[in-house]
């Protein structure tokens, strides 16, 4: 009697309604941001938040965002890119190499490493920021880009993901065949493994890129000069100086800057989505 199957799932109105509500809840802040980024500073405080109003100033706002305070926004954008490329890129490379090694080589202490990595996944980066600050302060590295890049290189979650993925995606037979053909371990890693791991690597890259791009607390603590700020801390500084005694109200720039800040992330998601989806479902079905 069942009228549904895997290919024709049963429809649930309640579930649809709940998900629709959730969708609206998720999208409202984004819609609000897009709408309000088109307003001038005065219109921001005189018109309703969820409706367009006042002159359409999005392009003026974008122009002003890039030129305000001697174009510091561009510098912040450059800093963020540097931290993402060096930090997230490095983290992806390290996680890939380490994850593969742990999955495919047998050596003493492997279980201990497993425990440490799993434990590290559970510790939020924010909790490590202050001890890291004290350590870097003793090394004299605070207020330098290295203070952001070095801690970003560590991604226990990425390592774990590659580890699990490599266990499934790379058959031992493949490595054995390569070895019999006379390939060295490094060559195997570079020519055989990397290609097999591509979806996993992209997934890890996406995670580390997003977390480095959005990283706020670590740079907030480490950096004191705006010239090294990433976008997150810089925008917060604009927001903070927009209220209080003798404020410079640049809320319209904060909003436009926020909108510009999420654009690269959206692009990254759209580009990597394909890999990401296949990466997440890898190994879930035995063929």
């Amino acid at each position, binding site marked *: 009697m069942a009228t549904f199957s895997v290919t024709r799932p049963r429809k649930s109105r309640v579930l649809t309604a709940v998900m629709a509500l959730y969708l609206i809840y998720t999208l409202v802040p984004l819609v609000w941001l897009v709408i309000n980024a088109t307003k001038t*500073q005065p219109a921001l405080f005189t018109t309703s938040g969820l409706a367009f109003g006042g002159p359409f100033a999005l392009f003026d706002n974008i122009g002003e965002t890039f030129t305000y305070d001697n174009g510091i926004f561009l510098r912040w954008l450059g800093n963020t890119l540097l931290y993402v490329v060096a930090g997230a890129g490095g983290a992806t490379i390290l996680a890939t190499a380490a994850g593969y090694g742990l999955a495919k080589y047998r050596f003493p202490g492997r279980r201990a490493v497993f425990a440490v990595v799993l434990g590290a996944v559970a510790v939020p980066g924010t909790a490590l920021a202050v001890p890291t600050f004290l350590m870097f302060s003793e090394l004299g590295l605070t207020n330098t880009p290295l203070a952001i890049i070095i801690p970003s290189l560590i991604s226990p979650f990425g390592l774990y993901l590659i580890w699990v993925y490599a266990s499934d995606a790379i058959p031992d037979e493949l490595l054995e065949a390569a070895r019999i053909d006379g390939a060295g371990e490094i060559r195997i890693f570079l020519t055989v493994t990397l290609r097999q791991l591509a979806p996993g690597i992209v997934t890890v890259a996406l995670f580390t890129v997003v977390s480095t791009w959005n990283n706020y607390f670590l740079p907030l*603590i480490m950096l*004191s000069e705006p010239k090294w700020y990433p976008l997150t801390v810089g925008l917060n*500084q604009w927001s903070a*100086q927009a209220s209080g005694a003798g404020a410079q109200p640049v809320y319209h720039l904060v909003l436009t800057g926020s909108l510009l800040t999420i654009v690269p992330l959206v692009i990254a998601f759209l580009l990597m989505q394909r890999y990401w989806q296949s990466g997440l479902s890898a190994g879930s079905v035995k063929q």
Partner: protein
Amino acid sequence: MSRIHRRVKAAVAVTLAAALAVGCSSGSDGPAAGSQDSVDAALKAGGTITYWSWTPSAKDQVAAFEKEFPNVKVNYVNAGTNKEQYTKLQNAIKAGSGAPDVAQIEYYALPQFALTDSLANLDQYGFGAFEKDYAPSTWSSVRVNNGLYGLPQDSGPMALFYNKEVFDAHGIAVPKTWDEYVAAAKKLHTADPGKYLTSDTGDPGFATSMIWQAGGKPFTSDGRNVKVDLADAGTKKWTATWNQLVEGKLLAPIKEWSDDWFRALGDGTIASLVTGAWMPGNFKSSVPGGAGKWAVAPMPTYDGQPVTAENGGSTQSVLKQSGNPALAAAFVRWLNHGNGVKPFIASGGFPATTADLNSPAFLDQADPYFGGQKINQVLNDASKNVAKGWSYLPYQTYANSVFSDTVGKAYLGGTSLDAGLNAWQQAIVDYGNQQGFTVSAG
């Protein structure tokens, strides 16, 4: 184990930006009598200093200073606004390097840095002689335990900002006493449930200023020993008034400084504000819809006699870490006792120097935003009527950071503030004792 323990302790201290190494707060700054010769000599010799500030006038001031003294290079850094900058400052002090020569510090946070021996005592350069040039309330703000840790930049004597249009439409007279104010709040909200006389979602700066005006002195300290009494007569006086607004749900549930708040100030949803004299600039820049509607009156009082309190205001201090403290002191002197005051006033700041406060040009300025009212006359009167004898905690930034966890609950639930203040006091006492102070509850 003890090493880890130390790390953890240090970590906690840094995050809270109130790590107070009390052990080193001895008054080793030498005699109070000093001379400005060394400052003049340093200025002549020139050099480079770093200055942390977030005030909008800082850039212009630095440019003007470098023009006047070409042999001095001032490295201006906006390291963050208030709390954020204090955290960085505290971190740099803790780390032993990285602090600037001169930093902007608000009055409420000054004792925290002064009492931990992080700042240079400007008495050694003879700046104590400038006392007569400043409004007494601001001078007492930079004097901490007989040391002088800055020259007052701005002040925020409180006044009543009100929407004349809304007041007139509902036949509300400008309240002179707090009883009248509460009555006006009821009248307005009853007549139009969408309107509120004022908003307050729990702001520690506002609460302490209101206690200050009511004559409360909840925080007393000599640096090491601290006494907290958030149930003294003055505090009770304030809560007896404000509880009526909190419990009667007569306060607009709109978070201060949010875009909603600015909009509410512009469209009449919030009809008045009791706040510092620095507010007009914010009205002009962020409440364009309120132009011509708002006016300024003296702050309401308990018995009709004029008395106000300071709300906000800041100074510049010379850090102990500075490699050239005399030059840094010269910069501070120029900022607040020299040509640096002009760019500050030009940017809309409310000065602390009596000569500027009392100048006819300042007093007779008719402000078009406030319908041509000469608001500086009201605000200048306010600066003369600031209640004396107030002091902040030596770790006020921490105390303020836990205000919303304690007193904030009373605001949220619409219950008596006294219980919330009691919880705040407990948090303040506990934290102070953990940090090595001897804190007693009053």
